[in-house]
């Protein structure tokens, strides 16, 4: 019996699994560094988070009699990203709850992989921030090397319990702004000697991981360049106009701009499929992030900016349709 199937009779070697596991690999440099900075606590929290994500997915698929798809690696990514978005001082149950929420409520209830509207990790983080604001925004740990605020110890003077962004929000004094704009500070942010979420430390290592994804075309650089670029430009304009005391370089290196712009905005499922749509998605997301940071109530605007843009994806796909050949 000859086998009959529709053309094409050859396919590329790409697969969903390959793409997802590549993202996991791309997050590894930052993960390894987080363990170095925060010790085995970072390792433990991340493992719990991943375990919770994968287990939630498995149990949901099992109880709803769907195909078990945990091996495609997408739940692992969500688990890692949830852990990356919490403080290394968090209690063990925090990432467990966050991941379970992200997988069950944000991903599976919408239909599972490919069907979710919001990036599960970001929506999970938003859920945790709303439910346990104290744990999510005021429970930081100093890194093993460096300080929580990123400033040299002698400059601390009673501001020791804040990350740079919180510092900026609660006390935007000129001296603080000067310290935040210092090349010492910017270097600390770039290489990762500053306190903060587990995965938001070293911009450099996140960039290395993202570069790997860009080269393999598993993430579209346009979204990242659009997002980070527009944070830089828009906050630069506001700096020039005197609306914010910090340099645009500080804006893109601090908080979650790198992690969000490189790894969460580029989530394929929740970003547009067209090139034009991706540019708009990234650029508009960056602007929203700066708006929240400068005028909003939160010190950080990355999660909400991307979540808001997630909602516009169908619209962006619609308005950025290419002209059909010959039409």
């Amino acid at each position: 019996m000859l086998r009959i199937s529709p053309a094409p009779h050859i396919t590329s070697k790409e697969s969903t699994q390959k793409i997802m596991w590549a993202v996991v690999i791309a997050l590894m440099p930052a993960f390894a560094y987080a363990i170095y900075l925060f010790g085995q606590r970072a390792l433990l929290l991340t493992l719990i988070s991943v375990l919770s994500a994968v287990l939630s997915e498995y149990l949901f698929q099992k109880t709803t009699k769907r195909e078990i798809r945990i091996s495609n690696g997408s739940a692992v990514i969500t688990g890692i990203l949830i852990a990356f978005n919490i403080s290394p001082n968090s209690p063990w149950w925090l990432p467990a709850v966050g991941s379970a929420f992200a997988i069950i409520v944000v991903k599976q209830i919408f239909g599972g992989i490919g069907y979710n509207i919001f990036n599960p990790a970001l929506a999970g983080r938003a859920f945790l921030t709303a439910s346990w604001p104290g744990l999510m925004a005021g429970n930081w740990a100093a890194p093993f090397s460096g300080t929580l605020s990123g400033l040299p110890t002698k400059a601390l003077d009673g501001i020791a319990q804040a990350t740079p962004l919180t510092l900026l929000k609660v006390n935007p004094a000129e001296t603080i702004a000067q310290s935040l704009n210092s090349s010492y500070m910017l270097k600390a942010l770039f290489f990762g000697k500053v306190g903060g979420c587990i995965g938001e430390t070293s911009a450099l290592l996140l960039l290395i991981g993202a570069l790997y994804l860009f080269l393999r075309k598993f993430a579209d650089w346009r979204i990242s360049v659009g997002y980070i670029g527009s944070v830089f430009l828009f906050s630069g304009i506001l700096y020039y106009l005197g609306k914010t005391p910090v340099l645009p370089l500080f804006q893109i290196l601090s908080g979650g701009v790198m992690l969000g712009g490189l790894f969460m905005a580029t989530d394929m499922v929740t970003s547009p499929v067209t090139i034009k749509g991706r540019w708009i998605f990234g650029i508009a997301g960056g602007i929203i992030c700066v708006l929240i940071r400068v005028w909003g109530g939160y010190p950080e605007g990355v999660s909400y900016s991307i979540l808001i843009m997630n909602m516009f994806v169908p619209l962006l796909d619609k308005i950025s349709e290419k002209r059909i050949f010959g039409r």
Partner: protein
Amino acid sequence: MSLLTFKGGIHPPGYKYLSKDSKIKRIDPPDFVYLYLSQHTGVPSKPIIEKKDEVEIGQKIAEASGKLSVPLHSPVNGTYMGRVMHPHPLGGRKEAIKIKVNKEKTEPFKAKTHRDISDFPPQKIISIIKESGIVGMGGAAFPTYFKLQVPPNKKIKDVIINGAECEPYLTSDYRLMIEKPEEIMKGVDIIRKIVKPKNVWIAIEANKLDALEKMKGTSSLFPWANFAALKTKYPQGSEKQLIDAITGREVPEGGLPFDTGAYVQNVGTALAIYEAVYFEKPLFERVVTVTGNVRHQSNFLTPIGTSFKHLIELTEGPIGEIVKIINGGPMMGIAQADIESCVTKGTSGIVIQNQKEALEKKPSPCIRCGACVDRCPMRLLPTELYKYIEMNELEKAKELGVTSCMECGSCSYICPANIPLTQQFKIAKNKINRKSE
């Protein structure tokens, strides 16, 4: 050297090396040949012989019937056994003329001597081409005489001779360009004299630069020819993409090449025109690449109507089990239900796949990676189209241009979730066509 190309497309592995160095070899016919009455676009041919008639190689055995049709010629000396239903490479069983091959009388077609055609008016040449049963040999098998009758209100600016051969594996056009460049060019000259274009382009993909050099080698005899190297990319040989690459003009949606002043013909067709016009040799044989999982991948000069089984045997057989036989290349070719399917005028090659190569991957949900959107040479949105077709919203699919889909297979090829996009679009197109009829 700058390479011409179009936007989108994919880079599947070529596998041309398997058969590219195998010289074109005339093969002995099998015991029986089967000539489908329908092996071209248009109305099937009408048989004009009686059962038990002896037929000669090159003899007309069926005539054109209707507005768009061509005659058929016997590829062998033999006996007409009647009309039978025979498995057709495009699917199903179709009526075919069965001829028992006379194994005593195997001498090849006696070509007439090179005749002087300089005073033949275009109409006469077109009728010779029609009577010789010539159709497009790149796959679509569209009657060539019909195409050559360009409507008087359409001016042809560019004639493009398609030597792209962008389907993986296939090397029949490549071998022709290597072995018969001058003959092909003489065929092109005939086309040129009928169509009277401003420019003539010989377009070849950059993975066949030696063929391009061979063709260029004739340029002193044919100073009017332009030779263009195309980027190696699938589907570079698709008519619309080729016209775009060479001229920068897009064939309008629902339109034909001459709407944009272009005329495309395959190299094999140009050769067939040359042989028919100069030597009165009708189209009853063609080069077929037999490749993939067989011992000796080959380019056979094959009598039309030869079974795939016979061709596979001539390669000294498959390596291991034959799991899939593809009529044509692996991107757009058709998987055969029956090894007894026979070569038609449009069969450029057959590809044999083993268990591993023919493995079907299980589809999983779309992760919206956008690879299909990026690659679609018609700039469609396969992700959106697929959604609407799944919901049976055909009007919406039509609005989004599904009827422009040429089923090149690029989206299915690249999809990491192995979603059968191309197949869905094909089904949707059929449904839309049936509705409008």
